[in-house]
C-alpha cells in the first residue's frame, strides 16, 4: 500500500506511545500522531492540550491548541496553569510532541528566530508552551523536516532545552526530569545515546538510504545503530485516513 511521508511520521511517533501515557499534543502532525496512538496502539493513553482541554472526543481535528475542538466532549476544560501542573506532575508519564525550525545534536530546539534575535531574518511564533513542556514533561518527541539548514551545529536561539550540552548537563541546570526521547523526520527516526545524550540514527524509513539522512543533516551523526522501520500496515493507514483525519486537514 502506498503512503506519504506525513503518514509515516504520524505512525512512527504514534508507535512510541504506550497505554497510560499522558500525551501533550500541539497541532498539525502532532495531533495526528497523538490521535493515531490512541486509536491504534495505546487506547488507554490520554490526549490533552496546553490550553487546558483534557481528553476531548476529537471527532474533528483541531487546527490550533485553542480550537473549540480541543474543548468538545472533554473530561475537563481548565486553564493554562492547571495544564502545566499536569505536564510536570511527578505521578504522571507525560509525553509532549513538539516541532521546530532548528534542532541541534542534543535535541535542543529553536522556534523563535533565524538570525540575530534583536533584528531577526525570520521571526517565528516563539515558545508558546514549548519551553515549558521541554522543561517539565517526562519526555519529548520532536517532529522535524529533515533538511541540513534545520539540523544545525548551533541553534540561532535555544527556545526549548533538550539534553542541553549532553551527559548530565540538563540535570545540572536544575531540570531533574525529562529530556528528548526521539526525533521523527520525513526520512527517519532518531534517538539519543543513553550516556552522551547525543543524537543517533535509530531507524530509516523503507526506501530511504542512510546516505540520504547523512547528507541532509548539518552535523556528523552516528548511523551504526540504524535499522529499517517497518512500513505502515493496512490497518494503521486505514485508521489514520478514515478515523483520524478524514477531512485531510493535515494528511
Amino acid at each position, binding site marked *: 500500500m502506498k503512503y506519504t511521508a506525513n503518514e509515516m511520521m504520524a505512525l512512527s511517533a504514534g508507535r512510541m506511545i504506550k497505554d497510560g501515557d499522558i500525551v501533550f499534543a500541539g497541532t498539525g502532525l502532532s495531533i495526528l500522531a497523538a490521535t493515531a496512538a490512541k486509536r491504534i496502539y495505546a487506547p488507554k493513553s490520554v490526549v490533552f492540550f496546553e490550553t487546558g482541554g483534557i481528553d476531548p472526543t476529537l471527532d474533528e481535528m483541531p487546527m*490550533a491548541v*485553542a480550537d*473549540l475542538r480541543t*474543548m468538545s466532549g472533554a473530561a475537563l476544560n481548565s486553564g493554562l496553569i492547571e495544564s502545566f501542573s499536569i505536564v510536570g506532575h511527578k505521578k504522571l508519564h507525560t509525553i509532549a510532541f513538539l516541532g521546530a525550525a532548528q534542532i541541534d545534536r542534543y535535541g535542543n530546539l529553536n522556534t523563535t528566530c533565524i538570525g540575530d534575535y534583536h533584528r531577526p531574518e525570520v521571526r517565528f511564533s516563539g515558545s508558546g508552551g514549548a519551553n*515549558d513542556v521541554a522543561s517539565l514533561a517526562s519526555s519529548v518527541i520532536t517532529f522535524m523536516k529533515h533538511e541540513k539548514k534545520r539540523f544545525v551545529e548551533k541553534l540561532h536561539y*535555544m*527556545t*526549548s532545552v533538550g539534553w542541553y550540552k549532553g551527559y548530565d548537563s540538563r540535570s545540572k541546570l*536544575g*531540570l531533574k526530569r525529562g529530556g528528548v526521547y526521539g526525533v521523527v523526520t520525513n526520512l527517519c527516526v532518531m534517538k539519543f545515546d543513553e550516556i552522551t545524550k547525543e543524537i543517533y540514527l535509530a531507524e530509516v524509513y523503507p526506501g530511504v538510504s542512510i546516505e540520504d539522512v547523512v547528507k541532509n543533516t548539518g552535523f556528523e551523526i552516528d548511523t551504526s545503530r540504524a535499522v529499517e522501520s517497518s512500513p505502515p500496515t493496512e490497518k494503521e493507514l486505514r485508521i489514520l485516513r478514515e478515523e483520524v483525519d478524514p477531512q485531510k486537514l493535515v494528511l
Partner: protein
Amino acid sequence: MGKTSDISDKVMTVEEAVHRFIKDGIQLSIGGFTVTRNPMAIVYEIIRQKIKNLHVVCHSQGQALDVLIGAGCVKRLEIAYGGNGRYAPTCIRFRRAAQNGEIELEDYSNYQMSLRFLAGALGIPFMATKSGLGSDILNIEGFPKEIRGTGKVAKEKFVVMQNPFNDGEDNVVLVPALNPDVALIHAQYVGEDGTVRIKGLTFADVEQAKSADVVIVTCEEIVPTSYIRAEPNLNSLPNFFVDAIIKVPYGAHPTACYGFYDYDPKYLNMYRKMASDDNLFREYLEEWVFSISSHNQYLNKVGAERLFSIKANPVVGYAVGLDRK
C-alpha cells in the same frame, strides 16, 4: 431582598469603554488564545480611536494582537507566542514588526506569562518555576537596558536562584508579577448582576483579569441573574472585578467563541493575504476597521451566510463540518 447588584453604571458601548479606560502608553493585557475568544470588537475600537504606544502583555495571542501591531498601536510587547493556528503559524504583522525592529519585544513562555499574571492576581512580587532553565529565554534579553525598571517594565526579566529549602544544587526561575492597567476579556455570558461566565477553556483569562487595575468584558449575551446564579460553579469572575460590560454578539469574530461560533476560515485566509503586503494591509484597515462605524455594520459586511456557516452547533460547541482549509 431580590436585588443583587446594579450594573447599569458598568454597561456601556465599546466607544465609551475605550474612551474612558484605554489611554496612550498603558499596559494592556489581552485575553483569549490564538484563534479563540480574542476581544476583537474592543481592539477594532482601540485602532479607530488611534490609541498609541501600548505596552501589550499576553501569553499566546493571535488576531487581536496582530491587528493592533499592524495598525501601529503597540510600542512594547511581552509575549510567549504570536500565531493564528494554520491560518498564520506566525502572526504576520507581528513577524514583520519583529524583523524590522519596530516594537520592543521580550519573549517568555506560556507558563511563565501565566504565572506572572497569577503573581499579580495574588499580590505577590514573583512566582517560581523550573520553566526556562538553560534556554535563551533567560540568556537573551529583548528590551533595551534603559527601559528596565521604568513604567511597568520589571527591573529584571527574571532571576535564577537556588532553592532556599534545599541544600543540594536545585535552581529555580523567578518571574516578575504583572499588574496591567487594563485587561480585555471576551466571555459568553455576563449576568444582570455582573457575574462573568466563560465557557470552554478559560486559558489564563481569570488570572489576567484579577491582575489588572481595570477589566473590560465584552460578551455574547447578558443573561438574567437567576440563570447565572443557578450554577455558580460554572462562573469565572464575580462582578466587583469588572469595570465595563459591553454586549457585542460575535464580538470575537474572526476568532472563535465556544458554543456560539467557530473561527472564520475565509476571513482569516483573506487577512493572511492582505496582511502579507503593506499596501493591502492599509486597505484592510480602511475597509474593515476605519470605515466601520458600528459592530452591526461590521457584521453586515461579514454577511449572514458566513455568520451562519460558522455558527456553532450548541451541543458540541463548534461548527460541525465547517470548511476549514
